[in-house]
């Protein structure tokens, strides 16, 4: 048991250390943005050196932890790596000046969905260390497909000329998102509300105990 815990410790330590390393400057950035809007405009302007370094660090941790999800055989370890990936994607949203979406990512994804997944692991396994082996042929076929997909996408991106506008931003005001949700996006908003209700009833129905 001690040995097994030790095995899990490595990815989780990497995850926590990576999050701390990347979260501290991002939090400083967003805190500075709240203090003085002019400062935030300067910091969030695309092209500053700080922005570039932050992006490379966060992107590296995101991709490495996504690869960790691919490589790990154990579903608990996959969940820990996914925790790191989701957190770093949230930090990418902060770097893209989408602060509200970043906050929602942390609250709903990292705080809600991931906990749900871990509960799923807990409820569906005789031991959380159970392994399901995949055939090596399947592994290599999937590897070829995914590397091919990634390189094709990168080729396409490098040849595309996007009509990029680099506009200065102070980050999105939550008010704007609220107004947009209740005017332009009212119908999808209500549809999402109905969907969540149906999901709640459906999940309760699916997971309930059958009376015999």
């Amino acid at each position, binding site marked *: 048991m001690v040995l097994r815990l030790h095995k899990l410790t490595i990815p989780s330590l990497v995850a926590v250390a990576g999050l701390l390393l990347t979260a501290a400057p991002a939090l400083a950035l967003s805190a500075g943005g709240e203090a003085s809007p002019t400062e935030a405009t300067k910091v969030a302007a*695309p092209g500053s*050196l700080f922005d*570039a370094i932050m992006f490379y660090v966060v*992107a590296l941790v*995101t*991709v490495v932890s*996504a690869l960790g*999800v*691919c490589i790990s055989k154990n*579903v608990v370890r*996959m*969940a820990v790596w*996914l925790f790191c*990936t989701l957190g770093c*994607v949230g930090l*990418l*949203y902060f770097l*893209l*000046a*989408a602060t*509200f*979406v970043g906050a929602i990512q942390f609250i709903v*994804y990292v705080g809600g*969905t991931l906990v*749900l*997944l871990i*509960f*799923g*692991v807990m*409820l*569906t*396994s005789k031991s959380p260390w*159970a392994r*399901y082996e*995949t055939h090596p042929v*399947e*592994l290599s076929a*999937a590897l070829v*497909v*995914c*590397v091919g997909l*990634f390189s094709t*996408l*990168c080729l396409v991106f490098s040849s595309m000329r996007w*009509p*990029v*506008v*680099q*506009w200065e*931003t102070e980050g999105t005001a939550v008010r*704007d*998102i609220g107004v*947009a*949700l209740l005017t332009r996006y009212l119908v999808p908003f209500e549809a*999402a509300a109905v969907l969540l209700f149906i999901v709640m009833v*459906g*999940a*309760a129905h*699916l*997971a309930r105990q059958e009376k015999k």
Partner: protein
Amino acid sequence: MLTIGLTHYLVVGAALLSCGIYVMSTKRNAIGILIGVELVLNSAAVNFVAFDRFLVQTTLDGQIATLFVIVLAAAEAAIAVAICVNLYKNLTSVDVDQASRLQG
């Protein structure tokens, strides 16, 4: 190189998408496949926010699309975990290869 543009974020999104597809196609644990789906959804969400930041000027279309992606991902995870629990009740395993009762 030092100017972070749209392409940088798209490459991160592509990496997440490839990893997600790899996880979905190689893991046999149903919860593992769900984790792959989450990765794919996140790659789409990163692309939405990046396009919103770099291509669209005043609308919030990309960010709101991402909010809906997050809502749908939460709903999908709830239903999928309930299905996995049911699968485990019936088969005492979440190996997707064993869930072949409808195959005839």
